[in-house]
């Protein structure tokens, strides 16, 4: 028992050490957004209809190399500045997968089956659009525009900050530190639960459950959720499943894991209203599952 806990502790610390630099970067970028992007920015430059902000959000998320830990504070900062929620949801779904580093590691891990790589990126883009649309239908179109600006955050009233001013940078560092501690506590919670699952739960037993075309993608999604891997490393783990699981289940693992897992659920819950988190999770789960099963029947 002690030995198992010791192993859990090792995995826990390992996840924290691995993610801390990315959380720091996320906190820093969200502070940059907070201080330098003027309040009217989005209302000025974005189309009036939030729906039209979805495609540019998808394009932008493909450009930025951010992972799932770093993106959450940044998105909250942006939404706080008036970015439509559906665009935020697109970022949360797409950014951890559609980026050059993840592309490189997926290529390397799945060189023997490029179909998996193509499906991973194609489906991720599709899921992002679908989730954005669902969030638009259920939240953006119904709630009043500014409800998210009531998300508490300081430095409310300041005018646009100058880039070369000491006070701007003081704000950025102060806010980065606070952001790091706020995200950090949820992250620690998530990493703790994930590391306990890693050592206590027999993945072998779970794998033995998989037989039907309906169940096996579901199992891979559960595995992805529990394992809470970084999106740059998950391709290698998925490659080791390749013999035991059908292709589409592997794809389900590869697209669902970066979008949702134990550690980022904890962070989402700490950062966004429960209503949004629930809707977001339900949308991601159902879109991923249904599209994977549908493709399976189309013969992939």
């Amino acid at each position, binding site marked *: 028992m002690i030995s198992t806990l010791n192993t859990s502790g090792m995995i826990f610390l390992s996840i924290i050490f691995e993610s801390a630099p*990315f959380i720091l970067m996320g906190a820093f970028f969200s502070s940059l957004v907070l201080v330098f992007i003027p309040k009217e920015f989005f209302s000025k430059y974005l189309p009036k209809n939030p729906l039209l902000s979805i495609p540019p959000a998808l394009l932008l998320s493909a450009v930025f190399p951010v992972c799932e830990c770093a993106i959450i504070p940044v998105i909250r900062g942006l939404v706080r500045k008036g970015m439509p929620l559906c665009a935020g949801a697109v970022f949360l779904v797409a950014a951890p997968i559609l980026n050059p580093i993840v592309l490189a590691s997926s290529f390397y891990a799945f060189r023997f089956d490029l179909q998996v790589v193509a499906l991973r990126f194609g489906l991720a883009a599709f899921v992002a659009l679908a989730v954005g649309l669902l969030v638009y239908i259920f939240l953006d179109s119904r709630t009043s525009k500014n409800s998210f600006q009531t998300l508490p955050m300081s430095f409310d009233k300041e005018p646009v900050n100058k880039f070369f001013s000491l006070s701007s940078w003081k704000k950025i560092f102060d806010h980065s*530190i606070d952001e790091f501690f706020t995200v950090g506590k949820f992250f620690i919670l998530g990493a703790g639960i994930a590391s306990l699952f890693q050592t206590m739960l027999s993945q072998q037993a779970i794998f033995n459950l998989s037989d039907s075309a309906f169940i096996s993608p579901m199992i891979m999604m559960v595995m992805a959720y529990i394992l809470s891997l970084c999106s740059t490393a998950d391709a290698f783990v998925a490659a080791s499943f390749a013999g035991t699981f059908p292709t589409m289940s592997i794809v389900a693992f590869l697209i669902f894991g970066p979008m949702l897992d134990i550690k980022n659920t904890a962070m989402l819950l700490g950062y966004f209203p429960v209503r949004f988190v629930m809707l977001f999770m339900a949308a991601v789960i159902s879109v991923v599952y249904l599209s994977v099963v549908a493709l399976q029947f189309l013969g992939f």
Partner: protein
Amino acid sequence: MLKAFFLLLLAVVQVKMIYTGEILYYLAPQMLPFFYFSTFSFLFLSAYKAMLILLQNELQKNDPCECGCSEGHESVWGKPVMYALFTIPLALGFFMPPKLLDSALVEKKGIIYQQVAPRSADHDPDERKAAQDQTIDHEWWEDYEFESSKSDLPEEQQTLKDELGIWYEPDHYQQLTEALLEQEVIIVDDRGFLDIMLVISAYQDKFQGREVELSGFVYRDMAMSENELAVTRTAITCCLADASFYGILIRGDGLNVFPTDSWIKVRGIIDQDLVFDQNMLMINSIETQAIETPESPYVYPYLYRQYMP
């Protein structure tokens, strides 16, 4: 104030990990630059906070809002809970003895045995090329036809090269095979562990009957008899959460004296055998001895790091 203190402690834990080298028990070497970055950031931010506190004492009136960001909306319990949560990794980092991942975890996560690639009688160069480019992972031999990836490959290499600046030498595995075959006893060193084992199982027919020497920890599963065990290594991509275990079946008399999880060095003859309908690479032990846990017990997908941009 407390935040400055916690940031400092985080920096100290990370410096301790670097100083003692323990960090390699937690992260793959390719993640180390990021780890240095976070260590430096923690140091910098704690120094910055400390400086603010000192300044504030001098000119209190000028700084009405040292930081109002999170104080505003958190409940009374928010702060204590936050610091309590941050105390957990700090305490573990300072006081928990580092420990290698062991058989108990292998049982939960599963082990990947080296399987022998199915071979056709003759080796025309085309097929060999396809086979060698497939020596990346381990369980797909049965499931993927060589033909299917053959046509994709040049195009894929081209894409990698053009778009990502990644270029891998297609003959790398060929060269490795030849270099290994020249050795009298094939030594599987720690650095090349994954690649060498892949080459051996991919070209098992060439290596059949050759003498090999490798080390790892002892793992046993339920199906194994008394004179069998698996020499196992833990492979890490980024952190321990993505660990996977690679094992090679060893047979020989007297293997039962080595306790599970202990480290051994095996010298033996390469062979293959049908286990549960799968053609498995195995080694008939000539001489097996107990060894100390090596300095760098984990193995890494070395080629991957080499080709990262």
